């Protein structure tokens, strides 16, 4: 480990670690909820919570990688909608299930590749590129369906989202596997290690011989693919496709990733942090539902937690001067 002067030594003070704070918060809220309402700890409710957070989790993981690269992806919600529409329409027309899923994911990868190409090779601000893609992808999804629901999906397809193993939907296991794999890759796989470097200082990374453009493009493709996977799970679980799926999901994903430790200035972000953040938000949401509170407060809570996360960050950075 190289020690940088001026940077706080994270290994020494546990409380400085974002994941620990989030885990503690989750513990506190879980205990409070289980004391307040017996329904919380029922396996049915817990399954409901983890199933509901799967889509958000997948998208937040993709966003974490993009934020790590000093980028941003506003198009994930629209890509989710487009993938949902394309996949379900193909199925409705009688396409084989693997083919429909493959083409659906192909469409999302293409969106990501276009984003990545504009950002990495044409050097256009990711905010604008993905803002454009957000409009275009949502627009195409709308045009394709004329605003109608796509239903009549084959049962075998619905099984992907509705099938259960030990009474827990398959998609929860798949999401967990994705978390573990991504966490390991982020720690050990060279291109993703290099992503930290790219996010911190792209120019220096380029001069060191890191293939900045290629890795950046890969990050955007990955992010879109995660949105595409969320679309597959969502459509198979709800037995339909709709062009408005994923509306506003991009801001939620960004908020979750930032609460989990990512920064808009690039170079930081953690898979575990993001996962815990999504879980925390899902728990709070669930608490509101169980306690018959206004479910509308969830946005307030999310914004509030984001502000707290910002403040903790500022506290951690207090002895470093930025800008």
């Amino acid at each position, binding site marked *: 480990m190289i020690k940088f002067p001026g940077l706080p030594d994270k290994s020494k003070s546990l409380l400085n670690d974002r994941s620990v704070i989030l885990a503690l918060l989750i513990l506190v809220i879980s205990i409070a909820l289980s004391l307040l309402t017996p329904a919380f700890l029922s396996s049915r409710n817990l399954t409901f919570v983890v199933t509901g957070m799967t889509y958000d989790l997948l998208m937040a993981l993709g966003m974490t990688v993009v934020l790590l690269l000093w980028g941003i992806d506003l198009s994930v919600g629209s890509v989710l909608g487009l993938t949902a529409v394309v996949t379900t329409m193909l199925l409705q027309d009688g396409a084989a299930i693997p083919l429909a899923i493959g083409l659906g994911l192909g469409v999302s990868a293409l969106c990501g590749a276009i984003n990545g190409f504009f950002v990495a090779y044409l050097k256009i601000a990711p905010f604008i*590129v993905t*803002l*454009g893609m957000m409009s275009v992808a949502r627009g195409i999804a709308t045009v394709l369906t004329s605003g109608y629901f796509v239903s009549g999906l084959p049962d075998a397809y619905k099984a992907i989202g509705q099938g259960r193993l030990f009474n827990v939907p398959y998609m929860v296991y798949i999401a967990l596997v994705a978390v573990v794999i991504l966490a390991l890759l982020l720690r050990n796989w060279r291109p993703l290690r290099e992503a930290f470097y790219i996010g911190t200082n792209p120019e220096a990374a380029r001069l060191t011989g890191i293939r900045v453009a290629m890795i950046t493009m890969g990050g955007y493709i990955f992010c879109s693919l995660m949105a595409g996977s969320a679309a597959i799970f969502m459509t198979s679980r709800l037995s339909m496709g709709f062009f408005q799926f994923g509306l506003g999901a991009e801001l939620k994903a*960004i908020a979750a990733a930032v609460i989990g430790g990512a920064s808009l200035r690039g170079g930081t972000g953690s898979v575990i942090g993001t996962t815990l953040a999504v879980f925390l938000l899902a728990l709070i949401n669930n608490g509101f539902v169980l306690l018959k509170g206004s479910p509308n407060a969830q946005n*307030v809570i999310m914004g509030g937690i984001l502000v707290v996360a910002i403040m903790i*960050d500022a506290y951690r950075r207090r002895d470093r001067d930025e800008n």
Partner: protein
Amino acid sequence: MQDAQALRAKQAADAGLLRRFSLETLQVGGLALAIVVFAIIVQLNFPVFLSLPNINVMFVNFLPEAIIALGMTIVIITAGIDLSVAGIYPFSAIVVGLLMLAGLPIPVAILLTLAAGAVVGAVNAFISNKFRVHPFIATLAILLILRGVNIIITGGSPVSGFPEGFAIFGQAGIDMGGFTLRYSVFIWLGLALLTGYLLRHHRFWRLSYFIGGNRRSARMSGINVERYLVFVYMLSGTLAAVAGIIVASQFNAANNSYGQNLELRVITAVVIGGADLNGGAGSILGSMLGVLFIAMIYNAFAMSGISTYWQDVVVGAMLLASILLGEALKRRRA
């Protein structure tokens, strides 16, 4: 030899044309040209397009975006961004409505609402300054909070039944025979001319270009950047409140669902108008043309038999095209 010389002369002439005008002039001019061409094409196919009543409809539909874009332009010039406008907009519509229903006189209700918008803007700037976080994140947090607050204070149902005098801000206007030229159009025009003039000629307002272009040297030359940003975000919040008040008057109701995705529409318009998200560039004229362009696209699609669903695709594609064009111009000049 002759050819080479001619080529060089031609290149010099090309470069001269590119260099003679500032980047801003080229971008705004290009956008104006695109608007004229687009208008002519649509007009040839749909003769009502440029009729006064239809132009009036375009104005009324995009008035909130146009007013909010004034503040957003200045925010973006300072290298910032303000997502919270999409929260302030319905929030102020609701607040002004609730205050009037509570029996406050109309002017007091409006002033309090404008102040509320300014306070939200100040909070944005405070979070961004104090915790040194990108304004995107600070204003995102406030946007999420306000969206929730809007639902909570209204209980999810629309607020309506405002006093009659309130209609003057969004409904009433001068009867032009066939359509009503609403007073709200003059509110927008006045604000646009004022901010446009100040941003071009007033020393204090022009500091925003300096701060956005190079924050470090702005700070070194003694400008209190943090305090300036408080002013800029307060301005943006206040303008969003103006738009909210107008829309509440226009529909004689306030609903928490107003302004979905409005922030991104406004940013798109401002960027199409030549503002640079990295700061230091942008103009009120450009932003207003950007809003006009988007308004025209939406209007044309609504008028034509083509599915209106194409409008989002076209707006997104226009955004990318205008950026690519701007980049290409910048590179040729460099």
